[in-house]
């Protein structure tokens, strides 16, 4: 089956939630990928919507680039709400 293209499968489990990556399937075309994904990943009503995406069209960050890529956000603690201490009297904000 490796001669068939690989598709990554994303399933929206409930209305209002994001599609989430669940795995992959091989298929001759996108339509078959959709049917295979339904059979493989939603046998117990796990989803209300499916995306199938050819794996070779995904651009991913390399894990060894982690430091370079995410470094700029590491030292900006003032971007988090918890950085700003408020007096107790102010209450919940």
């Amino acid at each position, binding site marked *: 089956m*490796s*001669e068939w293209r690989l598709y990554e499968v994303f399933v929206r489990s409930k209305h209002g939630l994001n599609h989430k990556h669940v*795995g992959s*399937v091989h298929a*001759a075309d996108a339509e078959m990928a959709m049917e295979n994904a339904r*059979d*493989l990943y939603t046998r117990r009503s796990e989803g209300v919507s499916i995306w199938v995406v050819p794996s070779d069209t995904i651009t991913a960050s390399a*894990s*060894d680039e982690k430091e370079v890529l995410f470094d700029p956000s590491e030292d900006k603690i003032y971007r988090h709400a918890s950085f700003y201490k408020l007096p107790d009297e102010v209450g919940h904000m």
Partner: protein
Amino acid sequence: MYAQLVETGAKRLKTKEEMSPEELEFQEKVDAEIKIEPKNWMPEGYRKTLIRQISQHAHSEVVGMLPEGNWVTRAPNLKRKLQLMAKIQDEAGHGLYLYSSMETLGADRDEEIEKLHQGKAKYSSIFNYPTLNWADMGAVGWLVDGAAIVNQVVLQRTSYGPYSRAMVRICKEESFHQRQGYQILLDMMREGTDEQKAMVQDAINRIWWPALMMFGPHDDESPNSQQSLAWKIKRKSNDELRQMFIDQTIPQLEFLGCTAPDPDLKWNEETGHYDFGEINWQEFYDVLKGNGPCNRERITTRKKAIDEGAWVRQAAVAYAEKQKQRANAA
């Protein structure tokens, strides 16, 4: 266990001083319970061991459909038939989750399946035993899936991310298998004729020892199990898992009103575990080498399915090609 005797290529464990900086960083990540993902650096031995273990596991799921397939047309009623088909469909799904996670390591699915067909890759010894009566479907679900669950629950914490996530999915679905199996036996013991009750005991007598063999040989000082444990591919030893399985299964066996074919089986107050007799290891190795009651039949059936389905796969590719051309022309 669905993977028995997995070769790691290790002669002995490396000390931290002997590791390269990359190996050391890798080992520290594993020790800190940080999951290894496909694009992370990993030792070649780790990659190869995982490919062997996951492919064995996947092959076991796929071959595991065959003993049950034998009973689809013979199930006693429509309800049981539907349940059995759902279980078999799950096994196919489990095989596919596992092949997918194996492919993230750079292995090729067709090549690994070809190795199975050539007898170069193993699958669990349990599926080389025949399923002779309807109670076997109950005993397989309860004992074989039960043993698989004990192993797989622990494997949810395995160090390789995609394998671990496949295990989480599989475990969610597997408990239906075990319950439906136990319920088949329970119904037969509660409402069955004497003959049907005897079928239950007969099925347990035949499947008991092969189910215990699923966990693989005794723990030893072998570099393979030590390396797999150090890499956290395996999380518990074969003997620990086997003991867990026996301890949780005996009360269920007693509730059924059946016995295990093991005169040495008894509760040990001191250890808080059941003692049990020695497994016939000669039989285990014979079956693993390909000389079990059904080894040849299983592989022949698998090959036939692949070969006779070739035209379907070719037609699907031709159809997809034609659709693409039409879309381009339009």
